[in-house]
Every structure is written in C-alpha cells, then in structure tokens.
C-alpha cells in the first residue's frame, strides 16, 4: 500500500519550462508557485552549465583537429619543397652532361675539320700536309679529351649537388616534423589544461546549484515534517525514510564527487 498516495500526479503547473532565468510564474489558479519556479530555475541552470561544457569540449576538439590538419599541410609544404630542389639539381646535372657531350661533339668536329684541311693541302705539299694532318688529329684528340674531362667534372659536380640537396632534404624534413610536433604538442597541452579548467568550473557550478537546491528543499522538508507531525494518523516513518534517503543522496561525498 503506497503511503498517502505517494507519486500522485500534481496539477500541471502553469509555468514555462526551461526558463533561462527564474521568474515567479503563476499556476492556473493564479497563485504564485515558488516551488516549481525554483525547480525550473535549478534545472535551467544545470542544463546551461552542462551545455556550456559540451560546447567547450566541442570547440577544443575541433580547434585541435583544425590545427593538426594545418600542421600536416605545413609539413607537406615543407617536405615538398626540398624534393622539388632535388629534381632541379638532377635537371642541372643532366644539362651539364648534355653540355659536355655537345662540347665533345664540337671538338670532334674541329678535329675532323683539321684533318680535312690537312687532306686538302696534301696535293700541294705532301710532306707538310702530313704534319698538318697530324697536328689536326692531335688538336681534335686534345679537344675531345678536354671535353670528356669537362663532362666528367660536370657529372660529378651534379652528383655532389644532388647528394648535398638530398642531405638538406632530410634535414629539412626532420626540422619540419620536429617543429610541427612541438607546435601541436604545445597547443594540445594548452587545450587539455583549458578542458580541465572547464570541467572544474562545471563541477563547481553544478555543485553550487545542487547545494542551493538541497538547502532550500531540506529547509522545506524539515518545515513540512514539523507540520505533518502535528497531524494525527500520519505515517511519519515513511516520510522519514524518504527524507533520509534524500539527505543521504545529497551528502557532498555522494552527490558532488
């Protein structure tokens, strides 16, 4: 048997639900209803602070995500740049080799021309032509060897350049990743600290709202208990049980942990 109709529905209060600020509203009978207003004010405050914490968490989460994406983008740019440099150095090397080869071909042409010249004067001055042709071949050979040396030098230089750029790329990569990680780690630590501050602010506000509500209700319950005890036939024990349970739930170590 339920005690005195416990759980019986009361008349629906004529007040707005979830009013952001406490306003004394009236029931359908026109009577001021502090109890409902107080309950609504506490509920609205709890909802507001809970929503504030959720918004903060969302903001910090999306902020860190945005920074992480930006960091990746920045590092990608940093890493892509030296790779382009490597390509440029390789192109330079290829151009140097091509140039050396052209020089070589030019030298060979000079040699051939000298040889041809030697042949041309062969008829008129045979002995002399032999010397000239010999000189022409020597010139051609010398120029060709020189050109080959230039080509080898150019290739070696280009190779060293590529190696140097490769080394610079690795350094730049390491530097960029290290810098990116440091920036994100610092931001993350800052955000974590703010999230903790937000959580503490939420708990503090929640506990204050709860304590204010408990204090008011405890006072009302004591007062109503006093009135009920003066009435005959009231099952006081059951009210005491409910009241004690409420007080138990409202202890700081239970409700505000």
């Amino acid at each position: 048997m339920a005690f005195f109709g416990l759980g019986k529905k009361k008349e629906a209060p004529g007040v707005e639900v979830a009013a952001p600020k406490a306003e004394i509203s009236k029931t359908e009978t026109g009577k001021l209803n502090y109890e409902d207003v107080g309950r609504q004010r506490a509920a609205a405050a709890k909802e507001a602070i809970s929503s504030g914490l959720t918004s903060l968490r969302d903001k910090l989460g999306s902020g860190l995500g945005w920074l992480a994406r930006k960091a990746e983008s920045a590092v990608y740019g940093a890493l892509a740049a030296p790779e382009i440099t490597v390509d440029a150095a390789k192109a330079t090397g290829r151009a140097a080799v091509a140039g050396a080869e052209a020089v070589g071909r030019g030298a060979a042409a000079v040699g051939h021309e000298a040889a041809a010249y030697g042949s041309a004067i062969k008829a008129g001055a045979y002995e002399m032509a032999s010397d000239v042709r010999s000189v022409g071949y020597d010139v051609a050979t010398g120029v060709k060897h020189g050109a080959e040396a230039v080509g080898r030098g150019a290739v070696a230089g280009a190779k060293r350049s590529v190696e140097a750029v490769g080394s610079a790329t690795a350094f730049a990569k390491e530097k960029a990743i290290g810098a990116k990680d440091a920036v994100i780690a610092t931001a993350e630590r800052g955000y974590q600290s703010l999230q903790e501050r937000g959580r503490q602010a939420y708990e503090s506000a929640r506990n204050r709202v709860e304590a204010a509500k408990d204090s008011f209700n405890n006072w009302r319950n004591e007062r109503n208990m006093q009135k009920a005890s003066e009435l005959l036939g009231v099952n006081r024990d059951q009210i005491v049980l409910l009241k004690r349970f409420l007080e138990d739930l409202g202890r700081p170590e239970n409700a505000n942990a």
Partner: protein
Amino acid sequence: MTQFTKEDLLSKIEALDLDESIRSELVSEVQSASEVTPELISSIKDKIQKALDDAFAAVGVTDDESDPMYKKKFNEMIEEIDSAEKDYNKEMTAINKEADKIKVTASDQLDDLQKQAAKDKINSI
C-alpha cells in the same frame, strides 16, 4: 564518481514505500545508467523530492509561499544559482578566450614553419 554503486541505489529505492510507477521509473533510470554519476544522483533526488512533496500535499501539508521565511530561503536559493551560473559563464568566457589565443598562436607558428620551409628550399638550391 560517487560512493554509491548502482546496487546500493537500487536496494535503497526498493526499500522505499513508493508508488509502483515512480519506483519502476527510478529503477529503470538507474539500471540504464552506465555508472552512478552526480547527474544521476541529482535526477533521482529531484524525483524523490517530488514524491515527498506529493506525500506532504496528500495529507494537507503544503508550503506557505507568503511566509517571509519561505521567501527568504527561496531567494537565497535563486541568488546562489544565479551567482553560480554567472561565475561559471565568466570562467567559460575566459577559457574560450584562452582557447582562441592558443589557436591563433599555434596557427601563426605553423605559418612561420611554412615560411621557413620555403626559405630552406631556396637556400638549398
């Protein structure tokens, strides 16, 4: 976390002389919760308080809202709630500003990082 376990709460709720619909609502709320949180405790308190108010009302005991002491206690509660919310909003505004500052600082640092990378590229050619 609170010191209560779900089993503690369920056994205490079972021990109360409550209307069956209220009891099953409370039991269901506790059982569906993943753990006992201050928010769950608060919600249960609100429902028990409502049951208690209804019990008092059923025997003709109601609040006298014209009582100056009642108004005083009520206003103290509202003022404390207003104050708690105001302090909370102030702190959250400060936290939000700090968060914006962290984002701007980190963003600037990443911009500098990109600029430095471009310089490194030019110098290494």
